């Protein structure tokens, strides 16, 4: 660490505590980025927030979805300016077509994709690994091990992008994003943008391979200007990366050798201080010479990588034998590496420590006063079959609520419900619930699709004025945002009307009876219908607290109907005498009153 770290220091540098997201934003500033786009997604959302707030010279936008975000960055890069798009790996699945189009094409201004891999969260996306895209599209992937490297590798990513004419992925994990450590900053550095127009055209590989196949040997400038020998560029990079200082061979003891990247590098250093280590800052392509050098130096070679066994496979493809997942089984055995896992497997006689048995689990719960709770409650009360989306409301899928029977990816619920209804000849109206973020992201396509395919379906759109799940970023229908102007705000109802939805109604979530009526009318209308449920996100907009509710213990029969609403404020507690009571936590209660509608015994009152 010290070697890499010292190199960054100069007489102007000061040390600043930054988390990984903040450091990536700093790197963007130092690299002279002109355009930042993308879509929120844990854990990398704050990269955009820090870029916008700390470096106002950089144009920032939250785009309607990840694919659009990446396309914006690609366009800006072709104009000659350094640009990046930020998203989580699940979001890159949405943007994968755009990345495939950019991969292997001519790059003017450096193009970097900052992607968050949400490793290690029991409720996160442990099944994704962004490095697959590096393999699939043959593009480089960099991975930092701390905040200093997050900044440095962001800058390096732009240099590689321009030098080898390729988009570059900067992989950051939840651990990098949420860990704070010191970063050397030159406070005197000013913002410098440069324009680099090396290529007059930039076409997808389809056009270029056509040129390659048909125009071999032709020197006609009309043909050669379209031709771009991307396989040769990547071959050159694979050769050059053996000399990159971000790939570092630390030869030490001969017993154990480890190839590692990201924070697992530090776990390895701490647990195996005598091991020889190849720390790669670029995980794709791998420095083959350095790997062979390490393999020749040690008795046993291991690979310690978070996520899937991607480096492992790539090392084995080099003909080098390495021990990876056979010793460290991946998901579900582990969600991410920890120093403990390495110690257990590679340090003889390490003491075993076990967590106490029987500690109850914290199942995700909605915030008290969330409009989703009202919708979940009505769907359950009337046994309406429904699909949920990726939204805070997906908590309604958990077993204590059981409000939804189908839930897949973001923006999917409208098309899922349509498919169900078509297959069942519209005999039961399977309802779609979707958040406003999911609606604008891709859900709107599902709505257009069902209209022009002459289908009938009911869609409940939860309009809480922001992308609540990731902390309240703005969307097309928000009243705020980086580039917000009131005249540009998109109204959900107007758009639904323009698409051709017959029956559209807008209701306030807290007017329980109206909402119930609206949903039942829509479901029974026999035509395509949209119910827009309005209530600003309680957490983002800090709604004023109403008079709190309490439970009269004399009247309470402990039927637990109120608890199954899924509100965080309602608790089952053991009193001083050991008797269980259902109580409302007055600190958390917002006074929305939903629980009082659920109580059949009038025990819940303000």
């Amino acid at each position, binding site marked *: *660490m*010290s070697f890499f*770290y010292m190199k960054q220091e100069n007489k102007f540098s000061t040390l600043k*505590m930054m988390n990984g997201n903040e450091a990536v934003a700093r790197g963007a500033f130092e690299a002279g980025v002109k355009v930042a786009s993308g879509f929120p997604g844990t854990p990398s959302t704050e990269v955009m927030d820090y870029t916008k707030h700390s470096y106002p010279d950089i144009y920032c936008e939250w785009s309607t979805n990840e694919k659009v975000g990446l396309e914006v960055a690609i366009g800006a890069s072709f104009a000659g300016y350094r640009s990046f798009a930020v998203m989580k790996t699940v979001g890159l699945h949405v943007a994968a077509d755009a990345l495939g189009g950019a991969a292997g094409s001519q790059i003017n201004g450096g193009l970097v994709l900052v992607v968050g891999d949400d490793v*290690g*969260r*029991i*409720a*996160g996306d442990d099944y994704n690994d962004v490095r697959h895209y590096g393999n699939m599209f043959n593009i480089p992937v960099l991975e930092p091990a*701390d905040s200093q490297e997050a900044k440095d590798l962001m800058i390096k990513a732009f240099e590689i992008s321009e030098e080898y004419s390729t988009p570059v992925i900067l992989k950051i994990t939840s*651990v990098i994003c*949420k*860990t*704070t*450590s*010191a970063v050397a900053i030159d406070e005197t550095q000013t913002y410098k943008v440069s324009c680099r127009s090396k290529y007059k055209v930039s076409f997808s590989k389809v056009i270029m391979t056509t040129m390659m196949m048909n125009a071999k040997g032709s020197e006609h400038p009309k043909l050669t200007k379209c031709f771009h020998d991307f396989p040769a560029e990547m071959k050159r990079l694979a050769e050059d990366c053996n000399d990159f200082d971000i790939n570092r061979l630390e030869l030490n003891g001969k017993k154990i050798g480890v190839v590692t990247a990201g*924070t697992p590098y*530090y*776990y390895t*250093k*701490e*647990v195996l201080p005598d091991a020889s280590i190849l720390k790669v800052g670029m995980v794709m392509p791998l420095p083959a010479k350095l790997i062979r050098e390490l393999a020749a130096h040690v008795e046993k070679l291991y690979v310690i990588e978070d996520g899937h066994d991607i480096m492992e496979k790539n090392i084995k493809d080099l003909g080098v034998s390495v021990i990876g997942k056979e010793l460290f089984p991946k998901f579900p055995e582990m969600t991410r590496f*920890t*120093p*403990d896992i390495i*110690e257990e497997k590679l340090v003889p006689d390490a*003491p075993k*420590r*076990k*967590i*106490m048995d*029987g*500690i*109850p*689990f*914290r*199942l*995700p*719960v*909605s*915030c*008290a006063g969330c409009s989703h709770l009202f919708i979940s409650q009505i769907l359950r009360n009337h046994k309406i079959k429904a699909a949920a989306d990726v939204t805070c409301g997906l*908590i309604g899928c958990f*077993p*204590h609520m059981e409000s939804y029977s189908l839930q897949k990816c973001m923006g999917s619920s409208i098309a899922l419900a349509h498919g169900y209804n078509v297959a069942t000849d519209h005999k039961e109206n399977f309802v779609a619930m979707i958040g406003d973020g999911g609606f604008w992201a891709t859900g709107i396509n599902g709505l257009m699709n069902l209209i022009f395919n002459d289908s009938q379906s009911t869609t409940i759109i939860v309009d809480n004025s922001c992308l609540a799940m990731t*902390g309240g970023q703005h969307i097309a229908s928000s009243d705020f945002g980086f580039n917000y102007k009131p005249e540009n705000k998109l109204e959900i109802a107007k758009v639904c009307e323009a698409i051709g939805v017959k029956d559209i109604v807008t209701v306030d979530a807290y007017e329980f009876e109206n909402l119930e009526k609206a949903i039942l009318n829509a479901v029974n209308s026999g035509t395509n219908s949209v119910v827009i449920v309005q209530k600003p996100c309680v*957490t983002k907009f800090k709604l004023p607290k109403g008079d709190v509710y309490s439970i009269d213990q004399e009247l309470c029969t402990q039927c*637990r109907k109120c*608890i*199954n609403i*899924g509100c*965080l404020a*309602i*608790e*089952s*507690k*053991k009193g001083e005498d050991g008797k269980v009571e259902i109580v409302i*936590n007055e600190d*958390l209660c917002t006074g929305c009153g939903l629980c009082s509608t659920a109580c059949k015994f009038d025990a819940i009152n303000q």
Partner: protein
Amino acid sequence: MQDTGKNIIIAGVGGQGILLFSNLLSKYYSKLGYQLKISDVIGLGQRGGGVESHFRYSTKPVLSPFIKAGDVDYLLSFEQTETLRYLHCLKDDGIVFSSTFELSTSSVNTRLEKDMPESKTELIKQCGKKTFIIDPEKNKSEDFDISKMMNIVMLAIYAEFRGYAHEEMMQIVRESVPAKFVEGNLKAYEKGIEIAKAF
């Protein structure tokens, strides 16, 4: 510097000001010239989910952002179910500071799981480590409810226990919290010193 560094886990649930707590502590140790790594692990659910912060300061570069089980010097916990989750991470001579506050878990509320039959406070006391239990209910007075500012109370308790200069810590609080909250926070800090002195 006699103290070459320590490993601390700060635990609780969302909304208890744990991130502010670790931020204040990081400013204190930064001023003393220590190297730091602070890793925040936040669960799903903005309110009421478990929050865990691994705080490491050292005179040497800090390597792993996560503290290995068995390497924790101090467990500072704001919620007692969360305290139980990390007891096994403590060193043999590790020390626990735990609030008796408890936010019942959703899985128990909804009967997906049974709660532990034992008293959680007793389980903590009997864990075989040095423990300090703080009861916010017993320490609140009519005009001042410390339960809302347990992060600052805990900061004062920890500072008193470690023999740190309170004036320096209070200065960091003054510089870090919005002006309208300074007075209340400093009052909570004083209360924390009082509680620590009574241990």
